[in-house]
């Protein structure tokens, strides 16, 4: 039997006809990269192709690599296979990859969400025959509120902490979530301070989009000036000595995982905001419907459950193992920092 247009092998999602990999996890010759998170853009490929707004981001992360930037919808041919990138709405510079050969169309989503977050170019549905989708939050228990609602809560939380003389420490991934928070939070409440890991990324993103003013926390930052303000920090800062400078403080985390009460309590975080850069249950279903695809391949997340449900709905769905694990990896990072404290 002939190999399908895209298949999964030990190195990643492979298009044999073009000898191109999508988000490979092992070094390859030619890699199309959906976005800048570490599990999707890895070291060691000879050539990277990605959306041009993602170029400075992966260069910042991976250093001097050979990378070509393309525009949304711009097609490029490799050995007769037509590739193009389309907005995925996950984080700034994130794309879906459309692959067409002899009239057959496949789309790989990378990571994606449907809501316009004000920073990433909003998701656009792309018609296809086969759809490779992530399903990180592929359970009916996940249901996002409009981000306006969530930011109302976050603003209120910061305001209240400020009134009680506490510093608000908000944990978020350095790339993506941190900038989304910055872009949408009410910056008139107070000053916004940032951990170096986040500020380094902010500097890269500021060349692409505008963000409110922030102050980098350095050795010289005085404890007194931070008090009552907002501090953005990566999850790994939780429980580290770095955070002692923020005393008295309250902590919060903004993530889809905050849906579960247990997840928040396990991390000993005071407050959880349910804010995700992935699709919730109903977005996944409506995104799949909008593609018109009949064949669905589910990658990272609750894949088995999700594909069983899709099969019951009349789709031809199955699961493929990948090494995308950003959310869980971030969870581990968070827990290892807790370890240090213990």
């Amino acid at each position: 039997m002939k190999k399908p247009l895209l298949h999964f092998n030990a190195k990643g999602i492979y298009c044999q006809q073009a000898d191109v990999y999508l988000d490979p996890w092992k070094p390859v010759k030619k890699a199309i990269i959906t976005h800048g998170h570490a599990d999707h853009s890895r070291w060691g490929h000879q050539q990277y192709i990605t959306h041009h707004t993602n170029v400075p981001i992966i260069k910042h992360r991976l250093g001097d690599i050979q990378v070509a930037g393309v525009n949304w919808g711009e097609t490029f041919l490799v050995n007769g296979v037509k590739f193009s990138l389309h907005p995925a709405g996950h984080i700034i510079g994130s794309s879906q990859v459309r692959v067409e050969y002899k009239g057959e169309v496949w789309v790989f989503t990378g990571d994606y969400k449907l809501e316009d977050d004000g920073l990433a170019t909003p998701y656009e549905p792309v018609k296809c025959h086969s759809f490779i989708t992530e399903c990180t939050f592929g359970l009916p228990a996940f249901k996002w509120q409009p981000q306006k609602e969530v930011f109302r809560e976050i603003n209120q939380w910061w305001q209240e902490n400020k009134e009680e003389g506490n510093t608000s420490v908000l944990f978020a991934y350095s790339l993506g979530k941190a900038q989304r928070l910055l872009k949408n939070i009410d910056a008139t409440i107070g000053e916004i301070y940032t951990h170096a890991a986040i500020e380094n990324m902010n500097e890269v993103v500021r060349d692409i989009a505008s963000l409110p003013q922030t102050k980098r926390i350095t050795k010289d930052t005085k404890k007194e000036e931070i008090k009552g303000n907002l501090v953005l920090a990566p999850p790994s800062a939780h429980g580290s000595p770095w955070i002692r400078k923020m005393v008295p403080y309250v902590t919060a985390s903004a993530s889809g995982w905050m849906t579960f009460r247990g997840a928040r309590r396990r991390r000993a975080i005071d407050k959880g905001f349910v804010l995700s850069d992935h699709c919730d249950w109903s977005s996944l279903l409506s995104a799949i419907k909008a593609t018109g695809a009949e064949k669905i391949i589910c990658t990272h997340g609750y894949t088995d459950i999700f594909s069983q449900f899709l099969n019951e709905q009349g789709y031809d769905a199955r699961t493929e193992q990948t090494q995308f694990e950003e959310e869980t990896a971030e969870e581990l990072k968070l827990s290892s920092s807790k370890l240090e404290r213990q």
Partner: protein
Amino acid sequence: MKAFAQLIKTLDSTNKTTVKVKALASYFKEAKDKDKVWTIAILSHRRPPRPVNTKLMRQWAAELAQIPLWLFEESYHIVGDLAETIALVIPAAQEKSEKGLHQFLTEMIALKKQSEQEKEAYLKENWLSLDYYERFVFTKLFTGSFRIGVSQKLMTRALAKATDIDEDILAYKLMGNWDPSTTSFKRLILEENKSDFLSKPYPFYLAYAIENEPQELGDIANWAAEHKWDGIRAQIIVRESELFVWSRGEELVTDKFPEFEEFTSVIPDGTVIDGEILAYNNHKIASFKNLQTRIGRKTLSKKLLEKTPVILKAYDLLEWEGKDIREQSYQKRRDLLEQLINQTDYTNIPLQLSSNMRFESWQAAAKERERSRTVKSEGLMLKRWDSPYLVGRKKGDWWKWKVDPFTIDAVLTYAMRGHGRRSNLFTDYTFGLWDKEKKELVTFAKAYSGLTDAEFRKVDAWIKKNTLERFGPVRSVKPFHVFEIAFEGIAQSNRHKSGVATRFPRILRWRQDKKIEEANTLEDLKNLII
């Protein structure tokens, strides 16, 4: 409901005791009296009986969420809490309910007698008229225990803060049998009402396990030692010729022990004894298992009573001649207790004194402790001769000095996701021991505790990668990891495949240094049975 849901949300979103007490105290100042009584009842585990079984609730919730039942069940395994799952999958509220906690509870009690259709209509209507967090709290009232990190002690402290009534007095008022649907906040908390106190037990004084070497407690002359019996800690109350038996879980269990009725003929009115109920056969303490069959049964047949006789071993005297004597020294209370028991002929009455011992040295005490298992005790209790009888678990005057647990090295064979703060993590494990030929692993115990959070996360990640088979929420895993399992007691059992039942098994250590071939056999385990 809004105020109560907000309270639960606040309690649930902090790890700081001071914040919890503050939130509770301000709730107790501001809420309606009827809602307060129910809040106290719920936080002291006095919920009305469940009006609907959870199977039906799952089914109805899945219907409202328009998802197949299997998908609801899968979600539940991952979320780890039924009420939370239901609250999450059901669509957002369309209209707002303004009903108070009291009204919901009254409806819930009435619902028990209604038809299945009425129950379904009631739940579906209310699920759709509450917002997410209210829906969670409402459902939590219907499904099992309401554990949200607030102990009764913490609640009592907040109530004391809100009412300016002494905490220990409040603890006493909240003991025993009171019905939240008939009492009022005024009667329960604010007023003193003598007839209410007839059946009321005192809060139990509980000890912590000793932390250091007992020598560090100082001169042994200041300490009494007695064996720690393995039964049901209980209070025996005789007032106005009536007998009341309370278990430590604050449950009135008088009717489970009809043989104690005889106490009223020899124990004077106004007496409260703290002791241990023990299974007792042929003048010997019998297995705890016998006691379990007694508590488990709804009605006690004559045959069962004959087969599994019980006695009370008396430890302490809390009330004498109608007076609360808890403030007096242990020495004084013991003297009165011994007087009481020695002055009567108890040959036909199931009451014995738990003898206490004076030792010349800590070495002598340690020697007695080592003997514990042969006299069917769990170790020694150390009590200061001059100590009063305190309320709740306190450090300092009383200490548990238990014998070291049994231990055995076993292999992890099955895992299940945990609940609450362990939701979505595989933390509930089943362990196996080798059969004679070391060919097959035979399941012998389950354990849920003993590893650190970090270790649980590591094992969880390993399990997710090394699953052999899935059976609903349970996964069988590759036999690979050895754990040292500790347990308190061991007995033969027909109910277990292994033929052995262990008491309170828990994980002592993750033996990463051991290979599965080095784990123990079932024979090794059986050899521990005395």
